[in-house]
């Protein structure tokens, strides 16, 4: 994070950085996720939060309220009956917010090529990260969260979804 370290005499070292970097450092290391277990992927998501895979290490704490959450992990099959509510919960989340679409069902509808399943959660809400697998193992979800952290760190801190941002690798 720190770009320069300056040491004054015998005092404490001072770290110099940019506002973007320190804001993104804070954001990316405290990704509070909205519990959104819709189907069997939800079990894997719960396992990721439990002791063996321990998401708390990443600062990812599952919250039951959209107002306390930054990232929505859509874990499971999104039915058309439920699409309205996922959109409402997404709208209730405070900016900045991100969405991980976890598993085949949330990505494309998966094997449920039927009348009642939304064919990809991105028809309803914007998705930042698509996580393949059926169901993805907790390691995969961990990797997705790490990728999302990377993504957050390279974005400007005052990002606004309505203004197209220049993207950096």
């Amino acid at each position: 994070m720190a770009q320069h370290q300056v040491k004054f005499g015998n005092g404490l070292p001072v770290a110099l950085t940019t506002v973007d970097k320190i804001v993104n450092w804070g954001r990316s290391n405290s990704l509070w996720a909205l519990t959104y277990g819709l189907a069997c992927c939800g079990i894997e998501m719960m396992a990721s939060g439990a002791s063996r895979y321990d998401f708390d290490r990443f600062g990812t704490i599952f919250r039951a309220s959209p107002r306390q959450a930054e990232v929505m992990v859509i874990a499971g099959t999104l039915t058309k009956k439920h699409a309205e509510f996922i959109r409402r919960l997404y709208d209730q989340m405070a900016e900045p917010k991100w969405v991980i679409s976890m598993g085949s069902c949330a990505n494309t509808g998966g094997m449920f090529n039927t009348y009642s399943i939304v064919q990809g959660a991105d028809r309803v809400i914007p998705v930042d990260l698509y996580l393949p697998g059926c169901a993805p193992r907790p390691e995969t979800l961990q990797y997705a969260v790490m990728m999302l952290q990377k993504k957050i760190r390279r974005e400007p801190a005052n990002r606004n979804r309505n203004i197209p941002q220049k993207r950096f690798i």
Partner: protein
Amino acid sequence: MSMREYKPKDNVQARAYYTDRFYVAPQLSKLSPNSDEIYNLDVIKLKENFEILDAYIQKDELVIYINSFDNLKILKFLRDDLTYGFLMEMSAVDFLAKRDGFEIFYEMLSQVKRKRIRVKTFLKKGLTIETVENLFRSANFAEREMFDMFGIQVNNHSFLKRIMMPDDWHGNPLLKTYPLQGDESAQWYEVDKIFGKDAREIIGPEIRDSARVDRYDTERFSRLGHEVSKGTDIYKSEPSNTAVQFQEKGGVFLIKNLNKPQKILTEKERRDR
């Protein structure tokens, strides 16, 4: 038991999974109800009180056909007098094309006799059936499901409302005429409801091919061979292939790139694999 008929498997993946869509499964043999002592007594008692259109034993289970207006009385009789005190399941079967109506079945269990009875009745399209909710509490949800999935009206039901599909859903999904991937209102349901009908053009139709890859969509698909950053517009200027690089080539000690020439299999070799 004979072996399953052999079918060539050359393009088994390409063919539709269900080839014979209108295959009618062969029926198991139907035995007379007097071949079982307990069932025989039950049928005799039923026939004394009600009109029983047909009765037979199929796969060790008694099946009786009744008139649809008798259902409440017969189920009450089965429950109170013949100890069939458990409604395991009830629903309907769509026979609209063949017989212009539905077959409604009630699966009953007697824990005293350790026997099951299937009560079936035929309901012409447009007719209604009396609720059995007051006899069996479980019928409440089952009848709501029947109403939801088939559109069968149930008389005197306490809360006849869709149970699985949303209230503003159009159509009854378990009808055989209902398309598997939904009619138009189903396909646009979530878009219409959340964003309004005007958003249809922006969002576009559903992509039903889950194996679809759009090579120009760099938002959602990464490209193998020549990677570009996410969101790059490559419609006009598609980057040429970048050469594949191996780290072994840069002089990793003792490790060499296995340069095995790729062989293109002939059609026969591929099939024999």
